[in-house]
């Protein structure tokens, strides 16, 4: 691989995929198309199979679209390694030109499936941090070309990293245990994870579905007075049990340790998961301390790095989590994860702007009040709950709920706060579901200051701070505080 050298393909050094990519890419593309269009295929089968002319035409269309995409991909994709960077161009109507700096590459993979092996080709995958998709994907290269390209990218990345390397502190000489979670704490985590909302949804659905599917059973049992609350209690209990079992299986035997190269968590009943987080790779820590968890004197930590940690089709999950940490040990544990956190304890919390606190009270008051009024006025009578509407007129219900909303908003306003130290930004929000986000300022990828139309009237701003593993959003601040925070974070 020569840096930007002229090749037989193009005097500027641009190269193309091997022609065999037409074959190699066609089948996967066809498979993806069929998967995406399975309802259509199902409809075809239900209508009488593939023998009918119309159905054959549909199938021919699917095949033609795959052929067209594969052909366009082959005809329009070109790449080159020039000026120490990988450049990829593709697209027929929307032309894309991507430049990938090797120093940003997190992972380089060479993949061969059976078709690649048949043609003596290989697929080169280039991944950069924070993307679930691949920044660069060259689906059919000769083995020699792919190896040469990979070697060139790695040489360039190594040279850049060596030039940027800075001395780091001494790592611990041996394994040092920081936190061990006992059985009772793991079960407590499950109890405090339970979502009452999910149980309510299941209960609601059962009330809709059962009378239709099993009317006799419904009339015999669940329509009796008092059966509804019992069923709701059953669903709530089932939700708690499910959550507790899930926590037990996932976090059983949890241990967090410091190793000579970083952090290690070990946990799991059936699948033992050992996560190693290299030192300095922690991007963000989220502290979940719901009211129930606070009542028990615990908090839960989610540790995020830049890795995507998700297979296709899966939700992204935290790289490592500490299920339950006693309140008193949170600063100590966090200090091990993010050195310097303990010092931030001395920095006082700064509240949201006064106008923001008023807004935090008024918004839920208006929302809860309006919803309660609409329910009492329109929904309750249609459900046959006229007795309820008679006992508590919609206006009275609305006022009660508005007051409750204002109270909840007031509690949220009291909890909304932030602080920054020379190395960290800490943002806390929510009273009932309190979440505190801690991120190292050295990891900030971008910082954004945002003002909507209502905020403009009130003179409020929010600052959004993004790191590779997530983001923190400040409470609403006045202009002075928001601008100061924005500037302090590089804005």
């Amino acid at each position: 691989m020569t840096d930007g050298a002229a090749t037989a393909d193009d005097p500027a050094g641009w190269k193309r995929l091997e022609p065999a990519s037409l074959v190699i890419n066609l089948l996967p593309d066809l498979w993806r198309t069929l998967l995406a269009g399975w309802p259509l295929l199902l409809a075809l089968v239900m209508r009488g199979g593939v023998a009918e002319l119309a159905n054959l035409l549909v199938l021919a269309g699917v095949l033609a679209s795959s052929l067209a995409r594969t052909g366009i991909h082959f005809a329009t994709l070109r790449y080159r390694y020039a000026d120490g960077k990988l450049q990829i161009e593709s697209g027929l109507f929307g032309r894309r030109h991507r430049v990938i700096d090797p120093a940003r590459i997190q992972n380089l993979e060479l993949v061969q499936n059976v078709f690649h092996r048949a043609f003596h080709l290989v697929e080169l995958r280039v991944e950069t941090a924070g993307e679930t998709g691949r920044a660069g994907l060259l689906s059919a290269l000769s083995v020699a070309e792919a190896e040469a390209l990979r070697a060139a990218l790695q040489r360039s990345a190594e040279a850049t990293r060596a030039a940027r390397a800075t001395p780091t502190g001494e790592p611990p000489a041996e394994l040092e245990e920081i936190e061990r979670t006992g059985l009772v704490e793991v079960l407590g985590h499950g109890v405090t994870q339970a979502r009452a909302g999910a149980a309510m949804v299941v209960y609601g659905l059962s009330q809709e579905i059962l009378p239709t599917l099993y009317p006799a059973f419904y009339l015999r049992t669940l329509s009796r007075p008092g059966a509804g609350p019992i069923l709701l209690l059953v669903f709530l209990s089932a939700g708690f049990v499910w959550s507790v079992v899930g926590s037990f299986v996932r976090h059983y035997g949890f241990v967090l340790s410091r190793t000579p190269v970083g952090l290690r968590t070990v946990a799991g009943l059936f699948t033992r998961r050992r996560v190693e987080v290299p030192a300095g790779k922690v991007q963000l820590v989220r502290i979940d301390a719901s009211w129930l968890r606070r009542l028990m004197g615990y908090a839960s930590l989610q540790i995020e790095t830049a890795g995507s940690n998700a297979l296709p089709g899966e939700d992204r999950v935290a790289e490592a989590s500490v299920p339950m940490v006693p309140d008193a040990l949170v600063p100590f544990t966090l200090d091990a994860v993010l050195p310097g956190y303990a010092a931030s304890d001395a920095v006082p919390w700064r509240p949201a702007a006064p106008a923001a606190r008023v807004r935090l009270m008024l918004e839920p008051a208006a929302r809860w009040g309006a919803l309660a009024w609409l329910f009492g006025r329109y929904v309750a009578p249609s459900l046959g709950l006229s007795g309820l509407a008679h006992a508590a007129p919609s206006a009275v219900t609305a006022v009660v709920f508005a007051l409750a909303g204002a109270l909840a908003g007031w509690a949220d306003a009291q909890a909304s706060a932030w602080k920054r130290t020379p190395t960290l930004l800490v943002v806390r929000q929510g009273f009932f579901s309190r979440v505190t986000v801690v991120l190292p300022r050295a990891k900030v990828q971008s910082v954004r200051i945002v003002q909507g139309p209502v905020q403009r009237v009130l003179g409020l701003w929010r600052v959004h701070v993004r790191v590779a593993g997530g983001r923190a959003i400040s409470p609403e601040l006045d202009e002075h505080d928001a601008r100061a925070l924005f500037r302090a974070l590089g804005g």
Partner: protein
Amino acid sequence: MSAWQTLDPRVTWLWRAQGVLRSLFGLLPVWLGLGVGIGVAASPRVAVVSVLTLVTLSVVQSVVWPELAWRAFGYAVRPDALVVRQGVLWQHTVTIPRNRIQHVDLRQGPVERALGLGTLVVYTAAGLNADGSIPGLSTADAERLRDELIATAPHSDDGV
């Protein structure tokens, strides 16, 4: 702070064309459906007035809004960062340190190519969406800015 740069004014025509097409082919069927619904529930006259009002508002928005968006949009290339501000109602200013830039895309759709325009999309390690996107650059400006942004800052750390 470097001086704020504005977009190529031709981008307003691109946005207008996109807005009108979106209104006619995307929203019009929805509104016609809404009109039928209102016609059944209220009266045909109310339905016609409602739909005509919506279509008119949409076309006006497609024509006027791009000018406001163009005025609100600006970017500045500082020695240490790219700064992009945008938004008519919701105003955003985003700062992307140059040493955090992972890669840069230059995108040109068929209409953009015909107008000699391009969209520069700047990615950091922060996630799935681009952190900074600058539409409506002339092709030459876009290529110059792309080359400038991907020039590696010495002794930088990308925070990952």
